[in-house]
């Protein structure tokens, strides 16, 4: 699936129409997937704040949950986010070697290699899930990562795989 200059190729659009029962208007070109970010409070949360200070714009469908350390992010939280209808999840923390808690992000790294495998195993597109390192001084990187993730998930369409059944009809639960 490719995206040229922000335009969706026909087969994408068709695939989406055929493959899902989602209302077309909610998955059009300007449909923004809902992204949940678990941000460590020492680096990435500070980086997100810096993006704010620098007035860097990114999609309004991004939500951030503050955790003390990326290593606090239980895979259960990620799964729950998908169940609750998020289309993508990002776990972000300090760069390796910079963890405020010295080793927390190494656990994150190892854990989420496995997490990606689990995603494949249950049949979720692993591209919906990302781990990355954003420091407190990388406001532009925060903007870039959430924007890129949003762009990368858009062609995948809404997440229907792990979503709780009663939510399936409620596309666009957030950012209404």
């Amino acid at each position: 699936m490719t995206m040229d200059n922000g335009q969706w190729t026909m087969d994408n659009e068709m695939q989406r129409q055929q493959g899902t029962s989602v209302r077309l208007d909610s998955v059009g070109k300007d449909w923004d997937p809902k992204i949940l970010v678990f941000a460590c409070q020492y680096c990435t949360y500070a980086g997100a704040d810096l993006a704010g200070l620098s007035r860097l714009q990114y999609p309004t469908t991004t939500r951030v949950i503050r955790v003390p350390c990326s290593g606090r992010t239980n895979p259960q939280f990620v799964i729950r986010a998908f169940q609750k209808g998020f289309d993508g999840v990002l776990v972000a923390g300090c760069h390796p070697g910079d963890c405020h808690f010295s080793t927390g992000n190494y656990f994150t790294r190892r854990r989420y290699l496995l997490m990606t495998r689990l995603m494949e195993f249950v049949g979720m597109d692993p591209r919906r899930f990302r781990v990355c390192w954003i420091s407190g001084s990388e406001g532009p990187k925060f903007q870039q990562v959430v924007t890129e993730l949003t762009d990368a998930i858009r062609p995948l369409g809404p997440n229907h795989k792990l979503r709780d059944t009663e939510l399936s009809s409620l596309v666009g639960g957030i950012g209404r």
Partner: protein
Amino acid sequence: MKKVGVFVCHCGTNIAQTVNCEQLAEAAKTLPGVAYSTEYKYMCSDPGQTMIKKAIEEHNLDRVVVAACSPRMHEATFRKCVNGAGLNPYLLEIANIREQCSWVHSDKTKATAKAEDLIRMAVAKALKNEKLTPSVIPIHKRALVIGGGIAGIQAALDIADTGYQVDLVEREPSIGGKMAQIDKTFPTMDCSACILTPKMVDAAQHPNITIIAYSEVEKVEGYVGNFDVTIRRKATCVDPVKCTGCGLCSQKCPSKTDSEFECNMSQRPAIYSPFPQAIPNKPVIDQEACRYFKTGKCKICQKICASDAVNFEDQDELVTIRYGAIVVATGYSLYDYNQYGEYGYGQYPDVISGLDFERLVNASGPTMGKIKRPSDGQEPKTVVFIKCVGSRDANRGHDYCSRACCMYTAKHATMVRDKIKDSQAVVFYMDIRTPGKNYEEFYLRAVEEYGVTYVRGRVSRIYMESGNLIVQGEDTILGTQILVVADMVVLATAMEAQPDAAEFARKIGITFDQNNFFNEAHPKLRPVETFSAGIYLAGACQGPKDIPDSVAQAGAAAAKVVALLSKDEMATEPIVAEVNTNHCSGCGFCVPVCPYKAISLKTLTERVHGSVAWGPAGKEITRQVAEVNKGLCQGCGACTVNCRSGALDLLGFTNEQILAEVDSL
């Protein structure tokens, strides 16, 4: 019923221009659990805070959500505010609708919808918030300084002067560090010993300082205020109480070995003090060099000692002492230039290091202060200095600049010109870095008054030709190759971390950077603290540093120690991991995950109530469960994810709280 109050801040127009605050406050009223909601121009201002306090009282609120700027900005402010109204500070939540909403979006409808969600999340979390109380830990009023170089000595003196007891642990037989080996010091050229040895004596005589020399830290347990440190006192074989320090034993000792203090340029006896002004001024026996320890025969020192102080049976001794705070001042070591093939792999005796040069010009050094080259004892006429050997050289050495070398090379070159008639001093350099008070002036004096020749360029090779050292380099300013026939070459070798720095850091529980220098908690704002509360840094162990900077940092570290020790007890952050012992299976997986060694297994003895899987009712059983040391736990939560039985949770960021946030959306 829990009653949440929501307070929406306009932040002037910072929030209000992209988020409809009135609409937000209205919408918040409809959220489950919300009993009251309002908006105001500046929530953090005095009237804003009063408004919150009043609302808490009037509406009996027991949870507060402030929708405003980042919690990193004003969480502390609002925690204090709700506490002022009698609420536990941890019952407050912040919805970050400024940095993470109004400032990053421009579409007012979408931004307002997002802000609504952020409030929804904060309310959901707040409903699960519980009162948290900091625990109080006692502060043991004694400090430990590890490393007795200038940084350690200064830190010990500064702490001791305020009245607290300090132990200064040094692994060599004497304190003093590298500064004791240096001859004169830039930029004033005062003699190093003249300014260092009085400080060493002050430390030795200070009623609050105990010098524990020839000793190393073996183990550190505990946490801020309560470190239990095990120190290994290496066997000195000399009873420090009986010994008068007369030095007769050293004179008569028949075993000789290279003197580390003199950079192996002269010999010392096996029973020795590293240098005449050593403190403590009691010799130790180097068992590897001692004839008695090698052959079982000799004991000359014992026979001639009038005070019967020599004891060959002496053994290493382990002592455990409790400290409230620790200063690490273990200093640096020097890059081994033998790795530079083009400088002769260390095979040319007249290619020496800067520290060797310090000993060569020192009046009490191996040559009594006459600059004589090592190979034949002749006075060198042409001395070449090469800077950045192992510094700013990613290939063979380190990326970083060692900071002191430009200055000490200028110092050395000046000394050559000063002490040797008709001499030439040629310095090869990449850049000249002299950021320090009176440093540039010092360098200019070397060039203008002392006529030192500075050549900009790298030396590509040193080789021997008919008994002479030929230094082949490039003058990048003139763009020509140059050859200098040199009598001696002095290499300004990089300052690097101690070879055992990484191991040492792990032992005491601090972190180190890519070059094995110890990490400060923040490069700008917390330069002497480490990530481990109660452990501070001073001197070159944190990064290359000259003496003025080492001393300044030592003073800063001492101030931090004193601030800590001046309290009888301290409150700890209540955001720590907690074990539900009912659920804990005692598997112990959490133990190795904790970077602070805060989790251990303990045995629980309990009587079984009702019939459970592991035993009939009424039976007394013992089982293992995890236990979190609240003083050590820093609240990262790594253990909670690892816990297989779901018994571990992080207060303030519980599974329930985070899931409530996810679920609210």
